[in-house]
């Protein structure tokens, strides 16, 4: 009779990769209850706690909604038959160059990323992309991050609400802020976030972040442009540039951090480039905090900034086959339902059931159910640790890819992990002044945010009991403006791209400061994501900033 087992592993949900311990009680115990349940503990190695998403890990491992069979257009099918069918179809499509695309989620191991790249070669395609899309902008950065040093820094300048996206970094940042009188925590964003009450906040107009940072860089480089920020409608005075520059210049061990979420910052590629330069000029560290656990590693292995080509190809009917590992395309590609008819073959792997999915759906595993290596925020290759056995029927994406390669070529491939370096940056163009026009038809500005207790995929969020009870999706807006408008509990939000009827969320759970004229939605949900466009024309990164919107009762 087996006794309880302990698994030391990494939290699967974000790039901070907190150490966790999953204890499994004795599954053969005759006693019912706690004796044979899974328990979750925060590993003492990690002094950072565990964020709300991490706390759902046991529920997701044991979820009754776990997919345990291969589904083809909603009907169960044998794994080997499905692999055979997929291989035959893929071989046919792959006769022409770049007719199959592969999208791989950031929660995979390095070994799986190498295998996915190998599969792309076999399928005669160079179109392999990373999701979440907002992480693509970070791939050219060599991350200069240190968990130990950040809590002893004297200045932290964060762009984006790091406390909402990666809450377990909050302890280190608050410790640094409180360590000594005179230490600074500066926060730049387009709405006030969870970090606002702890920081000197600079809340600027949505879409203007890159422009604001470019002025800051010029100021630091002594190229002081005499710009009256008040007149550019950025919503902060010019003195804020002087304050930030002075703080960064005087810091001896300062950090600049960037954290983004879909639909939040416009021009993220430009923003990270400018921030990196500011860090270099002012002799501070610069680090990016991706959304997904191993985005940096995956993105660097697959290489290139291909997402724009992939999405355009699908929309323009140039692509015949889509493979997505680790997430449903309906969940992370806005408006996917509108153009999935352009595709003759869709294969996806996911961990939870989706009965109405059209195409091949393979049951996948969480990262705590697989072994392998990932890249930490500190740029080290770390192993995931001891893995739980996958739920019956589920296979890791690495195994799935190997089977597909074998089906296509008849050859066995071996997974490996090697050194990964940041990829070459693509040209970012000039910083231009954003054009701001008052649109009477769409007077509101819509912004995407990340709430800490929702998963990156609405699919996961909807399946956890806690989130089911809380409901969602919802929208938030300035409380006094909402009161003035006199709208009911549900508001229809209309953009140029789509519309959604959403309830107004509990304002106490929203980020703290929402300027008037701004509406925010958690972009994890399909209903919210479809309100945003798929691409932006300025820097070709799929994380648009502000979107014009109107509200209807």
């Amino acid at each position, binding site marked *: 009779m087996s006794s309880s087992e302990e698994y030391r592993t990494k939290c699967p949900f974000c790039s901070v990769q907190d150490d966790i311990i999953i204890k499994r009680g004795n599954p053969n115990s005759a006693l019912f209850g*706690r004796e044979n349940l899974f*328990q*979750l*503990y*925060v590993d003492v190695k990690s002094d*950072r*706690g*565990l*964020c*709300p998403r*991490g*706390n*759902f890990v*046991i*529920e997701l491992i044991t979820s009754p909604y776990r997919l345990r069979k291969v589904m083809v257009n909603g009907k169960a099918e044998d794994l080997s038959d499905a692999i055979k069918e997929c291989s035959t179809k893929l071989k046919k499509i792959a006769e022409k160059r770049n007719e199959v695309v592969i999208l791989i989620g950031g929660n995979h191991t390095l070994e799986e990323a190498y295998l996915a790249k190998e599969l792309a070669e076999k399928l005669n395609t160079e179109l392999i992309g990373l999701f979440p899309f907002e992480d693509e902008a970070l791939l050219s950065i060599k991350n200069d991050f240190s968990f130990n040093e950040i809590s002893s820094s004297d200045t932290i300048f964060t762009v984006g609400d790091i*406390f*909402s996206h990666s*809450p*377990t970094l*909050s*302890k280190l940042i*608050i*410790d640094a802020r409180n360590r000594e009188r005179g230490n600074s925590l500066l926060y730049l964003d387009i709405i006030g976030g*969870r*970090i606002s*009450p*702890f920081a000197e906040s600079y809340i600027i107009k949505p879409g203007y972040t890159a422009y604001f940072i470019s002025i800051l860089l010029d100021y630091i480089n002594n190229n002081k442009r005499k710009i009256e920020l008040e007149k550019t409608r950025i919503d902060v005075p010019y003195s804020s540039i002087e304050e930030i520059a002075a703080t960064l210049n005087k810091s001896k061990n300062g950090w600049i951090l960037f954290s983004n979420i879909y639909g939040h910052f416009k021009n993220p590629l430009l923003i990270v480039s400018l921030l990196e330069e500011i860090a270099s000029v002012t002799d501070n560290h610069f680090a990016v905090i991706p959304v997904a656990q191993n985005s940096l590693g995956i993105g660097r292995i697959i290489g290139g900034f291909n997402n724009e080509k992939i999405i355009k190809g699908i929309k323009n009917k140039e692509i015949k086959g889509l493979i997505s590992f680790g997430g449903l395309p309906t969940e992370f590609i806005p408006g996917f339902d509108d153009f999935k008819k352009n595709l003759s073959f869709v294969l996806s792997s996911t961990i939870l059931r989706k009965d109405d999915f059209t195409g091949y759906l393979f049951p996948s595993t969480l990262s705590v159910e697989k072994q392998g290596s990932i890249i930490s925020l500190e740029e080290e290759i770390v192993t995931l640790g001891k893995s739980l056995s996958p739920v019956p029927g589920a296979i890791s994406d690495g195994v799935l890819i190997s089977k597909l390669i074998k089906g296509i070529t008849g050859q066995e491939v071996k997974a490996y992990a090697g050194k990964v370096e940041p990829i070459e940056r693509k040209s970012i163009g000039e910083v231009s002044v954003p054009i701001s026009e008052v649109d009477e038809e769409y007077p509101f500005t819509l912004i995407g945010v990340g709430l*800490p*207790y929702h998963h990156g995929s609405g699919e996961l969020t909807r399946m956890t*009991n*806690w989130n089911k009870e809380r409901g969602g999706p919802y929208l938030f807006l300035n*409380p006094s403006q909402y009161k003035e408008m006199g709208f009911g509990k549900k508001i229809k939000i209309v953009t140029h791209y789509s519309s959604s009827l959403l309830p107004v969320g*509990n*304002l*106490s*759970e*929203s980020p*703290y400061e929402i300027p008037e004229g701004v509406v925010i939605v958690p972009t994890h949900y399909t209903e919210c994501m479809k309100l945003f466009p798929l691409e932006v024309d300025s820097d070709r990164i799929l994380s648009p900033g502000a979107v014009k919107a109107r509200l209807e009762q």
Partner: protein
Amino acid sequence: MNETTETRIVLDIDRCISCHACDIACYESHNVKYNLTRANFDITVDMPLHCKHCKEASCVAACPVEALMKREDGLVYHNSFRCIGCLSCTYACPFGVLKSERVRHIISKCDLCYDRLEEGREPRCVETCTSGALTYIPITARDEGERIRVDARLKAKPWRR
């Protein structure tokens, strides 16, 4: 001198980032059941409210069926098999941390994760707290005056942020 020491969950309201990690950790480790109340008074106040496990617990005194009892280790323990859901304790509690369960219609309250305490660990909400706002620390009061002051800190109004 009448020195007493009790280990309690203390919230540092200057560190809480309202991430709900404690909320969810409690919910998940108590078999999807809410034992933790939240203070939601204004748009800037959203933080956990724990049972204070009062020395002279008015909820214990108010319970007509002895479903609530004060244990020797200081824990105010709720026996769900005895509870009849009369909600007397919810009216008696001066902090409003007791509430009714939606399904079973009996009350739910913080049990300090006593099973974890027996393993030498901290309550789940404290272990998971991302910002270090929640701590599980011994509080020693040397006399009644100090006890009142310590109690006042523990019972600090959330809007004093």
